[in-house]
């Protein structure tokens, strides 16, 4: 299981949890597992950047980027607020 950091805008879907666990050998599997645990995340994750070990998966293998158990996965959505 890897730690997934949930951004504030998606915490209503994870019962307020800032970090949750999900499993998968790559990002696609991990996100599928995450949605199976928190079904209301469906359709909302494609707007978040995904970082594995601090690196953007777009600069690695995208959804096929491997995830190790020790990796923290960060979901980072755009936030407009400067308010």
């Amino acid at each position, binding site marked *: 299981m890897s730690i997934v*950091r949930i*951004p*504030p*805008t*998606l915490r209503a879907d994870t019962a307020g949890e*800032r970090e949750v666990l999900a499993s998968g050998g790559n990002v696609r599997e991990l996100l599928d597992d995450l949605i199976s645990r928190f079904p209301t995340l469906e359709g*909302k994750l494609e*707007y978040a*950047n995904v*970082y594995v070990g*601090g*690196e*953007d998966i*777009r*600069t690695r293998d995208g959804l096929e980027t491997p995830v190790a158990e020790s990796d923290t996965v*960060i979901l*980072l*959505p*755009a*936030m*407009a*607020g*400067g*308010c």
Partner: protein
Amino acid sequence: MPVISLGEAHEVLYGDAVFLDVREQSEWDLGHVPDALHIPRAQVAARVEQEVPDKTRRVVVYCARGARSQIAAQTLLARGYERVANLVDGFTGWEEHGLPAVVPSTLPDDQRRRYSRHLLIPEVGEAGQRRLLNARVLLVGAGGLGSPASLYLAAAGVGTIGIVDEDVVDDSNLQRQIVHTTSRVGEPKVESARETLEALNPDVNVRTFRERLTSENVDRILGEGWDVIVDGADNFPTRYLVNDASVWHGIPVVHGSIYRFEGQVTVFKPREGPCYRCLFPTPPPAELAPSCAEGGVLGVLPGTVGSLQATEALKLVLEIGESLIGRLQLFDALGATFTEVALRRDPDCPVCGENPTIADYIDYLEFCSR
């Protein structure tokens, strides 16, 4: 023309020789030989006999690299000075060899006192403080992020601070927007901010733009010439507009955004690192990106994030340290953690990529409401 080497010149430095610096004022201000006499080359003929009446005295003439000083030395020879020598390696060579140099104080006493804690830091010092006093920083938004950022930039002595904001102060702003006050509710934010910043530091010239940044006015406002933009906007259309304009104007943007207990800070420097579109190619739908007005924000959070933005802006002006270019800091106030992620340029970026497909301002409202 008699010449003198660096070694010979150093030997006579503290003797009876006079070192004559013929460079321009701006070069002199950055450092010179101790106890040197400064007469810019064009004024040598008119002033040297008054400043050095003894024509038997040894005179070492120098400029940056020995060219201007050769001309000045000829002027001295023609006027009967007997022991003139040109320092052919110039002050550039002098400094490269680590020979003694001093940086003159050009700040008035009141500024020396006000900025004394900056002057004590080797990385800032007088040269850095002068840079700050000559710097121009544009703040987009005088709200949560713009408040602490503008206060610290003004306190630091950033000479010109521009502020773009069309709103008026609302009492719901005061929980976090510390540049405004209760008595200014209803006043334009740019005027309220000006009052606070000028009261904090009269050295600062505040340039106000009481308007919303748009495709129509952005070139006029950015065209005034800014060293750094601090982006504290509160909506996606302005974020994308600031990005595109900054890439085309070549101005670095210190980006900050906040929501509830979390903030993001990074620096987008055109050509040296990614831009906002490399990071977020498309804005999220509105329901996935609520504003602070909808979702709230801890009042001190913009204090943390806006202060980090001010720090990065000062570093860019001073050209010191490691900038947040290509790195994003994610601050989580609840966890009290900073997490860094790497940002990369997208070669296919429609604005800063190798083959840009967007070359002029678009309809940003439409782009962000799809």
